């Protein structure tokens, strides 16, 4: 368990920072609601939507008007479908890049490899601690909206947000698994971060192609299908988890080849 303790010690401030930043962003969405509600009349929403569709036809533009219908659709659209997935994606890049590349860069990998810890345990500890942190940040920053909604005198559709997270979390795990694997390919955190960012940019390409939008991981993370009462895309979530397992195995194979 020593290696899990080590990973926790190394990443605990990242967890604290992540929770603070995302909770602040989450609350910012709440604070903006009265102002948005005043500004975004149905006519204004329709006008804005049509303008954006004409200006950027390649963008996967959801219908804006229903987004401002109610407290829950606004909050879901601005949080789960926008701020949360964007911020968590950045967080994943920052968290995963140094896991192996940073250790090589600092020379601390030699310390770890010279101890009687199996490579599987090293890889598992890094993976599980960081995945747990990502999930925890997403959960805390989302469900802080529940008491805040009550304070604001609004009802909170907890099941909608829970299903949104259930659909998104396998996607977050998959993105982390890819970035984690990429971290084993480099000896410098910045290079690993840049390579992961390029990888994520490639994954976002289907979002811009109308016929292939359903293949975009980021579209799944946005979870518009749940706003349209289409239910959770369980098969896609399962595929994300299978791909994650594949990248975990690849990371393990690469880690066994590491020389200090």
């Amino acid at each position, binding site marked *: *368990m*020593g*290696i899990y*303790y*080590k990973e926790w*010690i*190394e990443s605990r401030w990242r967890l604290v920072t992540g929770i603070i930043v995302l909770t602040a962003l989450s609350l910012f969405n709440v604070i903006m609601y009265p102002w948005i509600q005043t500004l975004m009349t149905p006519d204004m929403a329709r006008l804005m939507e049509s303008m954006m569709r004409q200006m950027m036809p390649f963008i996967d533009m959801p219908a804006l008007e229903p987004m401002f219908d109610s407290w829950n659709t606004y909050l879901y659209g601005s949080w789960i479908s926008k701020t949360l997935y964007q911020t968590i994606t950045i967080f994943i890049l920052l968290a995963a890049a140094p896991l192996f590349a940073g250790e090589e860069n*600092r*020379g*601390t*990998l*030699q*310390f770890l*490899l*010279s*101890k*009687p*810890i*199996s*490579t599987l345990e090293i890889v598992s500890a890094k993976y599980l601690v960081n995945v747990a942190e990502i999930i925890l940040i997403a959960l805390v920053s989302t469900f802080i909206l529940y008491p805040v909604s009550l304070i604001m005198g609004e009802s909170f559709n907890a099941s909608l947000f829970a299903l949104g997270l259930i659909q998104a979390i396998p996607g977050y795990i998959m993105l982390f698994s890819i970035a984690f694997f990429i971290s084993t390919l480099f000896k410098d955190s910045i290079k690993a971060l840049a390579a992961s960012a390029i990888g994520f940019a490639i994954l976002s390409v289907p979002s811009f192609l109308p016929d292939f939008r359903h293949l975009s991981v980021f579209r799944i993370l946005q979870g518009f299908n749940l706003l349209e009462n289409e239910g959770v895309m369980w098969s896609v979530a399962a595929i994300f988890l299978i791909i994650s397992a594949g990248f975990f195995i690849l990371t393990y194979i690469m880690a*066994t080849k590491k*020389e*200090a």
Partner: protein
Amino acid sequence: MPEPVIKLESVCKSYGNTKALANLTFSVEAQSIFGFLGPNGAGKSTTIKILMGLRKSSSGQAFVFGNPIKGRNPAILSRIGYVPETDSLYPSFTANQIIATVKPYYPNWDIGLEKTYLEKFELPQNKKISEYSLGMKRKLQLLLALCIRPELLIMDEPTLGLDPIMRYKFLQTLVLEVAQSNITIFFSSHNLSEVERICDTVAFIKNGQLIELKKMEELKKKGQRLRVVFQKDIPQSALAIPGVEILEGSGKHYIFSVSGDGAKALEELNKLPVFIMEDMDLSLEDIFVEKMEEK
């Protein structure tokens, strides 16, 4: 005869076209203090990393405790204390956090010894490693290596960068540990006086090849050096004695290196009109320089 703790059989290691180790073969007996000497880039650190399973040899085979090393083996690593050449401790950790990280992996971790060394080395337990001096980091590495109660202690330039007082304390700790337990120590060093002081066996390595491996006593006997003052001038031509080499001097005063059958060489020298003959103690440094210039 007991099995050697370390055995290398024709170990080779190449990095691209550069040969770091070439057919390195030697063994280290149990409970010995083995000094591994060589100039920079000789292959000392590569050899140590191969023994630890941190690098793979290109060909040949290394054995530790009789087990072939084919990569990292946690079962073998749990019996080895390792002090690396480079600073590999986590800078944002405290000594307590580093200890808590590694302790669970060593069933023989000695808590009493941990407390003793934390006090003896005056290591601040809650200060970050990034605030430690080089000497403190080295001492913490030694503490981590000794508290596991290792059967084998491998150290790569352990006293590099330490001041003389710190180096003395470091070596004193090692000597005490060896006296109290039955561990085998394998260590590389540039500091020849410390190797001379504590090692019982010494190996010289150059360009990845073993040049010499001897017991310290044998090594010092082997390279006898004599200062001779004759009663009258002796021409160099009269000193062509087998096993005797003139290192410097002319006329009445000479310094000779005596190798091979020393007694016979001395007998031949004594046939000449010797006024004073004294045995000059050869330091390991003299031997090292000689070995490195030889081949």
